[in-house]
């Protein structure tokens, strides 16, 4: 088998080719797995997002119905139950902020939007199906005028300063600032 130098070289080359092939196979196998895993995760994310939107539609549907019927207070009471059941879900705070604003409670609306955006940045993202960018921009404009004006007239007032800080937080998120 290893009678002469030629045999030895042939076997050595064969062994090298086998090792190289095995290494190549192993590398390709790893890369394929990564791609598949990446693809799988993206699909998973997409599915989770769609599921969330569907769940939001179902959960908060009754609240939206009450709002459409002009029953804002009943909607708020309903929403209170949902916020307690799903404290980590941002959508309740965003809806609550919209209702409070309609009811003339600007400072509380700002606080609710701030809580919602802190929980989930989708609401300031123009491309998100959940985007409330326009509403938040309107709230910021009104907040700067109203709360900003009151804060400027009462520089020592800590409650107004805290409300204005929340308006500015929303403003910074609209401008692309991160959490």
């Amino acid at each position: 088998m290893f009678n002469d130098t030629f045999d030895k070289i042939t076997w050595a080359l064969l062994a090298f080719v086998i090792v190289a092939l095995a290494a190549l196979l192993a590398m390709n196998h790893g890369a394929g797995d990564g791609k598949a895993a990446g693809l799988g995760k993206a699909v998973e994310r997409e599915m989770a997002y769609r599921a969330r939107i569907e769940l939001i539609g179902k959960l908060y549907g009754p609240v939206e119905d009450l709002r459409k019927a002009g029953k804002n207070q009943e909607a708020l009471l309903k929403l209170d139950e949902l916020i307690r059941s799903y404290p980590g879900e941002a959508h309740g705070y965003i809806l609550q902020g919209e209702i409070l604003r309609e009811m003339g409670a600007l400072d509380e609306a700002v606080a609710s939007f701030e809580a919602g955006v802190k929980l989930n940045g989708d609401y300031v993202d123009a491309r998100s199906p959940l985007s409330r960018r326009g509403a938040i921009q309107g709230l910021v404009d009104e907040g700067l005028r109203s709360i900003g004006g009151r804060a400027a007239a009462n520089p020592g007032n800590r409650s107004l300063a805290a409300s204005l800080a929340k308006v500015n937080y929303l403003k910074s998120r609209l401008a692309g600032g991160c959490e």
Partner: protein
Amino acid sequence: MIRSTFRRFLLLFLPLLLLAGCKGEGSRPVVKIGYMLCNNEQETMSRFLPLTRYLSDKCGVDFVAVPVDTHDFEKRFKAGEFTFTHSNSLIYVILHENEGVQLLASEKRGKFGARSAGALIARKGSGIEKLADIRGKRLAFGPMLAPTGYLAEYDLMLSAGINPEHDLGTYSIPPGSYKHEKLIYGVLYGQYDVAAAPILDLETMTREGKIAADDFVILAQSKPVPYCTFGVAKGADPALVKKVKEALLALKPADTAEVDGERIKVLKAAWIDGYEELLDSDYDSIREMAKRVNMPPYQKY
């Protein structure tokens, strides 16, 4: 000789030094806070004693809680029975206009923070769907000096062209304590057709599972107006006033005070979320309503 004189000197002044060094119970100034009764004296005291102790701890004076009936509040304040006031927003406005009481801090509770609203409610399915339907019906108000249990709803009716004195079948105020709860239950179980319900009570009762969010139709609702308020007599020590204000605004849910040997969470005991610094002009909405409804401090006979 020197040692002997020193010993005598020490013996003479030691008791005085010891006395001066002691800061015994009752050696601090005593300041009284008048708390408007919510439902009854026992409930009001158990709610606000921890807050009173907290303020004593923070401000270095011995605060004493004085329970005060709503209708006696101005009279007793005028008699000098207490320096700090804790009352509803209408009583604050009365004390501000008549006695010069200054705004200190406003209580936060519920969805509207330091504000709440008054609503006229009917039972769902009763056939009363809009405000005009309440003509000729039986209505229950909350206590007469309640901003969101009487004043706001009376004003809502007047604004809609309904005169409660002539256009309702009857109106009454439930007897005894827990008036707000009684009238909400009264509508739910058919004792009254319509009730003047504070939104805060609807929120609380829904949260506690006593009623459901969709048991009622809200026929009309006022704009949110300031709710419970701390005030202070105009001649009070400014340094103490500042300390009290700081202490109230700094209150956090984890803050505790000792009552009868027990550590109690101050905000939780008082059923409040915290304190806010409103402006006196925020109470103008109360003033405007009181003028329209012909109530104190603007009442004309």
